[in-house]
């Protein structure tokens, strides 16, 4: 390697050639086709209850499948090459384009959403955020409701595949730690995707099905059970009712929901290992350990506060604390009760938890437990070094050695995350939102949580009163946060395109 030479001075064979747009378009075409076919599900649902919206879904499905098919057919011959830059472009474009097609039913359906609202809703679905602009979900046609759930479900499985199969190769923000032992460091991305996607999808479907059955047994109608199971496993948070999970007024449903939200925010790699190595493999994962400790402490603090401040009884305090910890840490965003009125301390804890998020390798968003663990490991090393300047302290996360470039990647990510949070909040503030709404909207969209704080976008509110500009900013922030910031940002570096 030519060491210190600047990149432009590298020999030609080390530099990358032109970006291969054809293979990018061909894969996007395939995914769009799948989305179009998925639109037949809400069409069937609407047809069954006799809602005229079924036509919208059929037409949108037809158009989407056609566009995807054309894109795939015209470019498929080229689909041999998919390297780092193509993968970056593919990931970002996929989310933008899928949201664009996914919003067609919202735009044309009887709800009469504006385009900004429809795109916001679709992006919120695809990024599994769960913020909504629709008021009156309880009386909305079932087709739209199931379509929102399906969008989240697809977005959820999509991000897991990306996180496990693509991001480690891209080395975005320390994600290379997620590299499985079996997969080598090669830049062949497609084979790894096809090898892993099957297993991931199987686990995802099994969990969804289990959740569906549990909800149904606990008293939901089959339709509600399906819609909520889809959004629970995707850690999405779209509900079929304005009052979210609180609509059911059932402790059993809240407990089931808590369990599956936690399950969905564990790394899916651990499930794969569980299938091979049993429960022991699950407990050995350092990410899971840290997650359990953090969630336990957070829930305990909340429960203690609720009990001491006499907000509610013991049983309610414990259940709701666990539920809220799960819904915020897993970045789902369901609400069982409106915590806006539970005092500033409670809201401050919720606000802080929003930043953290679930484990990397799941559909949860936020900073992620993996990065938190690495930051703590680096901090420990720094402290050891301060006390013993001549000692050698390798940074370890679990049993794995954290290399310096991982630590630097995480550092860069943390900086970007905080900077993005501040900038988005500032811009939202400039467009006229009050302080708490702007701050919490910024973090809730970047971390893909869903509800914010305050009267407007709190757990009982919606984003409907936002202006179009604010909705577009929030849509952008959701995309940025979902794709780990760097994946999108790298496209804006001129050198990327050379």
């Amino acid at each position, binding site marked *: 390697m030519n060491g210190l030479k600047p990149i432009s001075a590298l020999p030609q064979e080390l530099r990358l050639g032109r970006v291969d747009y054809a293979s990018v378009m061909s894969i996007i075409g395939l995914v769009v086709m799948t989305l179009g076919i998925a639109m037949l599900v809400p069409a069937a649902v609407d047809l069954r209850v006799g809602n005229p919206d079924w036509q919208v879904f059929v037409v949108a499905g037809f158009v989407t499948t056609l566009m995807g098919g054309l894109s795939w057919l015209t470019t498929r011959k080229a689909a041999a090459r998919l390297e780092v830059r193509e993968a970056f472009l593919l990931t970002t474009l996929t989310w933008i384009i899928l949201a664009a097609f996914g919003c067609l039913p919202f735009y044309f359906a009887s709800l009469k959403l504006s385009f900004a609202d429809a795109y916001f809703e679709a992006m919120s679905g695809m990024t599994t955020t769960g913020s909504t602009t629709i008021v009156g979900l309880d009386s909305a046609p079932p087709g739209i409701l199931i379509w929102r759930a399906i969008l989240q479900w697809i977005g959820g499985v999509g991000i897991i595949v990306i996180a496990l199969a693509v991001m480690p190769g891209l080395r*975005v923000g320390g994600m290379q730690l997620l590299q499985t032992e079996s997969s080598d460091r090669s830049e062949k991305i497609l084979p790894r995707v096809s090898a892993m996607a099957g297993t991931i999808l199987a686990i995802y479907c099994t969990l969804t099905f289990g959740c569906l059955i549990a909800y149904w047994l606990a008293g939901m109608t089959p339709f509600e059970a399906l819609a909520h199971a889809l959004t629970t496993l995707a850690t999405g948070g779209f509900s079929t009712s304005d009052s979210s999970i609180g609509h059911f007024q059932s402790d059993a449903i809240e407990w089931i929901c808590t369990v599956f939200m936690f399950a969905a925010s564990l790394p899916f790699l651990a499930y794969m290992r569980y299938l091979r190595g049993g429960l022991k493999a699950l407990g050995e994962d350092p990410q899971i350990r840290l997650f359990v400790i953090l969630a336990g402490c957070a829930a305990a603090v909340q429960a203690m506060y609720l009990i001491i401040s006499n907000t509610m009884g013991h049983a309610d305090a414990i259940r709701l604390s666990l539920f809220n910890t799960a819904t915020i840490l897993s970045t789902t965003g369901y609400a069982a009760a409106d915590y806006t009125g539970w005092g500033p301390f409670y809201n401050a804890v919720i606000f802080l938890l929003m930043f953290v998020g679930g484990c990397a390798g799941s559909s949860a968003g936020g900073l992620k437990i993996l990065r938190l663990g690495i930051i703590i490991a680096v*901090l420990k090393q720094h402290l050891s070094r301060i006390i013993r300047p001549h000692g050698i302290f390798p940074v370890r996360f679990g049993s794995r050695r954290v290399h310096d470039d991982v630590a630097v990647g995480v550092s*860069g990510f943390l900086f970007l995350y905080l900077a993005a949070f501040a900038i988005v909040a500032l811009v939202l503030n400039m467009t006229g939102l009050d302080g708490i709404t702007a701050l919490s909207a910024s973090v809730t969209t970047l971390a893909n949580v869903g509800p914010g704080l305050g009267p407007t976008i709190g757990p009982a509110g919606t984003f409907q009163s936002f202006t179009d500009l604010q909705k577009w900013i929030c849509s952008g922030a959701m995309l940025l946060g979902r794709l780990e910031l760097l994946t999108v940002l790298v496209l804006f570096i001129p050198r990327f395109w050379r």
Partner: protein
Amino acid sequence: MTSLSSIEPAPRGLIDVRPALSVVGVLLALLGTAMLMPAMIDLYFGNADWIVFAGAALITVFVGGMLWITCRGRARSITLRQAFVMTTLAWLALVVFGALPLYWCNLNLSLTDAIFESMSGLTTTGATVINGLDNAPPGILFWRAQQQWLGGLGIIVMAVAVLPLLQIGGMQMFKTEAFETPDKILPRATQISGMLTLVYVGLTMACALAYLVAGMRLFDAVTHAMTTVATGGFSTHDASFGYFDSAAIEMIAVAFMLLGSLPFLLFVRIIQGKPADLFRDTQVRVFLAILAGLTALITIRLLFNGLPFGEALRDAAFNLTSIMTGTGFATDGYHLWGSFAVTIFFIATFLGGCAGSTSCGIKTFRIIIVWEDLKQHLRRIVYPNAIAIKRYNGRPLPDHVSAAVQSFIFLYMALFALLAVALNLTGLDTLTALSGAATAISNVGPGLGDVIGPSTTFAAVPDAAKWLLSAGMLIGRLEIFTILVLFIPAFWR
């Protein structure tokens, strides 16, 4: 790991705190001597408080002297661990003894208030609990200013001579090659502090002279000069700089607040005949660029409020410089400038000035280092096989410095969040809790909102919150790690 610990140069085991105590003793004796100044001023103005100052001085000098006499005798070298203990102990002791005159004087402050005020002074924060400064006795006013001035000097010496050797939070970037071992801390500190004191005194005198020429009274000029160069922010008037309402005075303050937040070693370099170093320094450039950018934003915001350009620029430049350098002077209730301006001020609270100055916050060099990390990371993402070297000030930036800076920023944000939540629990509203936590750990001074905003004081804050804020100021001032390591069991083994 056990085999590795055997290369450790310093013997482990119980720490011998005597060398640390002897240094603390010397510093206390100096502080006690300094109390004679306000005593003389009160005597001159015929205020009965002079007895308080004289008495406090006597006690402080006595305790300091006893400490020094009983603990001296050992060699003039201390180990790394003793340096940590010394730094924290020194600040604590100085704060406690500095609070004596405030506690005993005729202002009738409670012990909590006196400690808060003293801590706010020595850490150059500038948050005050005293209402009615305009009628306060001159001795007290001078003592507050003097405390900030001494605190500022202490910070510079600490940041230049001690912290780089403690290798905390990335400060090792400022290690000069000649002094690399901890046992050189004391000689090095003595040697460097001579030069730095000279620069510091020179700047303060220049500032006082400028204030005097611009129309301040002698007393005001001297006290404000001391708190300006220390980027402290105590004033002799409740209305702070708004009392003078003079563009000239504000511009002088801006200039000297800026000088106070530049790295003082570069001033020494100027004396040594290398003035170009000041402008070649990355940290100085970035700091000035950030400040100019934010000032422009606020100015534009104020133009929308209908202010004429000159006045908008003046208000924006003064208040933003005051906040970003961690000074905390105010000319106007900037919390009323709209939420956009408030957000900018809130962000500026965290940024701070350059390392090696009297200012506080995260500090510009750390922001540069994380930015370099980010750039390198992005480069590596696009070209996985290329080797990219990050640089700071032309020198390669080792990964362990990045790790240290990353840890610092993470801890800083975590501490801010914890402190805000704890303040919230004591009953403060959200805005007060958030801005109080930020202003304390960044040593700025005023917060936001009605309770602790720029036009009010911290008097109305509950006692528990005052203790929390005092602790926050100390932890922020000592760059978090200096105190944090003391709580790690491994440190004491």
